[in-house]
Structure formats: C-alpha cells, structure tokens
C-alpha cells in the first residue's frame, strides 16, 4: 500500500490543537462570558420571574429552563466557533496553507468541526455545573443527555462551518446566527413548554427544528418532552444529514474555497 495515500492524522491533530489553543487563549470570551450570561438568565428567569411561575410538567421552573439554556449556548457557540475558525483564515489569507497541504476534505472537517464541537460540549458541561449551583438538577437518562449534547454540538458546528465558508464578510458571518438561530432558539421552548402556547402557535412552532432539540434534551433530564423522543432524535439526524450533504457539495465543487 502506498503509505503516502494514508490518512494524514498528524494534520488533523495539528489543526485540532490550534483550535483548542485558541479557546484557551481567549478563555474570557469563549468560556467565562457564556457562564456569566447563563448565570444572568438564572437570576432573571429562574429567580425573579421563576418564583412567580408554577411548576411546568411537575418540574420547578428554574430547573425546567436548564436544558434549554444549555441548548441555547450549545447552538450559538458551536456555530460561532466553527464559522469563525474557517472564516478567519479565509479572511486573512492564511487558508492557502490548508489548501496546499496534503489533507483531505474529510480530515479538514473532522479537525475543525471536532475542535468547535469539543469547545461547545465543554461549555455545555460548564453551564450545567453552573446551573447546579442555582437549582436542584436531576438527569434521568445520562446516556441520552450526552448523546443529544454531542449530536447537537457536531451538527451545529458543521452548520457553522458551512456559514464560515459561505460568508464573504464579517456581517454575513453574524447574520445567520443573529437573525435565524437566536430567534429560533428563543422561540423553540427554551423558557417554556410549547403546550403553554395558544393553538395556532403551537402548530407553527412545530416547524421550528430547535423545538425538537430542546424537547429531546429536556426529556433526557426529566423524562418529560413536548414531542416524542424518537421524533427529536430523528429531526436532529435529519439536520445533521442535510449539513453533511451541503458540506460534501461544497468540497466537491470547491465552492468559495478553491475558486
């Protein structure tokens, strides 16, 4: 076998390490600031407002919003980590090195998406630990909790990677997270059960993919869900498959990378 055709694991490791090093270099921005904003959510929604809200599905309101808050950070951070990681070298031009290196597209993806997903999973766990300081938590299905965490981090890192390749300006880089993802997350049941919505809105909400992520994730904590877990898992996998298909197309055509 031609050894030179073997996978370039060293390159994957080199990229992954640089991505992780960036997280620790900007520890304030990438770790501490989400923790502070999560704590603020707890103070405002959990304590100030939550004390006036009854239990939802038998769960104290403060505890009820934990999975949603984790998802909120997981989604936005996965996207911003991955999109920035690939956009920045494109912007300064240092991407030439990546493109001229003996690495396959799959290896590039594994390294960048792996780096971004690792960071947001770490962040999710930090938020979980922070939340535990404020509210009593229980996790009924730890395996599925981790599975949803990893699956979501990977899917949205992949989505972020696509945005990073697509974006030509910093403005475009911010556009999708700001105009689409944040509203979808807020309206996806982070802070409420969709059963609390009036009739027509409940139906509209079902078109929001984030609903399925949050619902499935909350089920792994408390065993209660807005939609069935199987549907949640299915929708997550469908979104993952769509992202993979888009990435495959990008790499096949060299879209905004090699043209």
């Amino acid at each position, binding site marked *: 076998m031609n050894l030179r055709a073997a996978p370039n694991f*060293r390159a994957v490791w080199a990229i992954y*390490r*640089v991505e992780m090093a960036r997280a620790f270099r900007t520890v304030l921005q990438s770790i501490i600031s989400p923790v502070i904003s999560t704590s603020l959510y707890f103070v405002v929604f959990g304590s100030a407002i939550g004390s006036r809200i009854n239990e939802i599905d038998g769960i104290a309101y403060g505890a009820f919003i934990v999975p949603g808050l984790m998802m909120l950070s997981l989604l936005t951070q996965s996207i911003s980590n991955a999109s920035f990681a690939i956009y920045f070298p494109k912007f300064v031009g*240092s991407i030439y090195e990546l493109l001229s290196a003996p690495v396959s597209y799959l290896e590039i993806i594994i390294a960048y998406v792996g780096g971004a997903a690792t960071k947001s999973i770490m962040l999710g766990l930090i938020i979980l630990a922070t939340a535990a300081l404020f509210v009593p938590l229980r996790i009924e299905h730890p395996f599925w909790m981790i599975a949803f965490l990893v699956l979501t981090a990977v899917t949205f890192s992949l989505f972020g990677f696509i945005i990073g390749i697509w974006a030509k300006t910093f403005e475009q880089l911010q556009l999708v997270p700001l105009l689409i993802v944040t509203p979808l997350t807020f309206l996806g049941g982070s802070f409420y059960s969709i059963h609390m919505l009036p009739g027509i809105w409940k139906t509209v909400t079902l078109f929001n993919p984030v609903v399925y992520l949050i619902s499935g994730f909350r089920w792994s904590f408390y065993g209660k869900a807005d939609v069935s877990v199987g549907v949640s898992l299915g929708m997550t996998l469908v979104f993952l498959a769509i992202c993979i298909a888009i990435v495959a197309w990008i790499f096949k055509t060299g879209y905004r990378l090699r043209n």
Partner: protein
Amino acid sequence: MSSIISISGVTKTYATGFKALKEINLDIERGEIFALLGPNGAGKTTLISIVCGIVNRSSGSVTVDGHDIGRDYRAARSLIGLVPQELTIDAFETVWATVNYSRGLFGKAPNKEFVEKVLRDLSLWEKKDSKAITLSGGMKRRLMIAKALSHEPRVLFLDEPTAGVDVELRQDMWAMVRRLREDGVTIILTTHYIEEAEAMADRVGVINKGEIILVEGKAELMRKLGRKQMTLELRAPLAAVPDGLSSYPLELSADGSQLTYTYDNQSDRPGVASLIRDLEAAGVQFRDLDTKNSSLEEIFVNLLRQEP
C-alpha cells in the same frame, strides 16, 4: 525522468468568464532554479496556485514527481513548499507553534531539531516565542519561508519573494535559495524584478496574458535576444554623425561627445571591427570605449512589445 513538475494543457477560466490561463505547457527540471517572469496580472500566481492545489484548474493536468495533483494529491502536495506573495499568518500564534503546525499539517512527524535548524538558518530562533503579530515585515517574510520549509519540501515555490524586502533579507534569501539548490531542491520563483531572475535563475519562462511566451536557459536568452551597446568617448565633439558612417545605427549624444552603437549579439554582420575601421577613415578619434549587455529587463520589455 528529468522534469519534476509537468504542466500540460492547463487552463483557468474564472466564474466571471475571465481567462486567467490559456493552455499552459511547462516542464520544470529537477533541481533547477526556474524564474517565471511576467507583468502583474499575467497569471503567475494563478499558475502556482493551481500546482499547489489552492485553485482548481479548468482543464489540463499537472504532475509533481510523477504524482497527479488531482488523483494523487497527497503525494504531490507533500513534496511542495509554498511561500505566497502576501504576508498571511495567524497573528496570534508564536513563531515556534506556527512552524510546527505547518510541519504537522503536511503530515511530517515532529522534529524539534529540524525546526530549530530552519529557524536558525532564517535568523528567527531568537524570536521563536514571539507572536507573529509582533514581528516586523521582514521577520514575517522569514516566518513564511520557515513555514514552507518546515516539512522538508523537494520543490519550493517563491511567489514574488523579494517584493518590499530590504537588501539584507534579499541577500539572505538568495543565499538560502542557493543552499537549497545544493541540497537538490527545485526552486520556482515568480518575479517582476528582472535582476532577481538574472542573478538566480537557470532558466527563465516569460508569461503574459495567461500564455507562456517563451522558456529559455537564461544564458541562451541573453545571447539570443540580448543586444549589446558600444559607447565611444570622442576626443573632439562632433556636430553630426559623419556621412561615411550613415549605414551604422549610431546615436550621437546631445553634447556631441559620445557615440553609441547598438548591435545584435547574434548578428552575422561584421559590426564592431568594421565600424572602428570606418571611424578611422572618417577621421573620428576616440579616447575610450565601453560595451555592455542589455539586461533581462530590456529583453523582457522588448518581448512584451512584440506581443500583439
């Protein structure tokens, strides 16, 4: 097999319809220093980018040491080091980290001694713990070279290596290029500084408007297309070129003290000797005589002028 890079029928048409390259055929010989000359926008960088895998070609094929850059891209690319024109480095990484990153990216096992040697050779060792953003322009250029050499390439592309570079770095760079050549590394440099090609290259290719106009050994090119000039310092100023000498392309300086004779190096016509005889016959005396070869730059300008 003597050619290390073989480019055949390569074209590039951008999505805008702009034809950056039209049918490029070019062979780079193993171990040579090849200078690709051309004005801005001629297609130099596009051609290099295609060989290095940064830009997809529209058609044609390229092999590097027999490896097709498409089918066998890993083998092809791992042989190549590229120093691009622009200073593009991750500004927040240290010198040491970024050079080791490059080595890893090209799939080479870590080798601290080798990376140290590269950094020392480029006078970067003292700066190994500095972040790239703190380096001067010249140091950044050295860092780009260090990154390209970190994985021990057999072919080195230098895209406009001395654009905006000071004299010291330019000389260091030329010394480095010679050392690499002694180690058997093939070097391809693009430039629009002719003196660079003149000082370094074994062969010169001229590209203009996406086409290779000619490829020639530097010496042959100078011989073929070079013109010589002979300047005579006259003892007494002349008011006009004497009638008996009108068959020669002579130019008289404004003050009448110098006569300049331009002739083709390769021309069979007896030039210099007969001119001097005829000068004597016409009673023109000179006290000094100077000849010089025209530079590659002049050759180059002439070539481009001939282009339609």
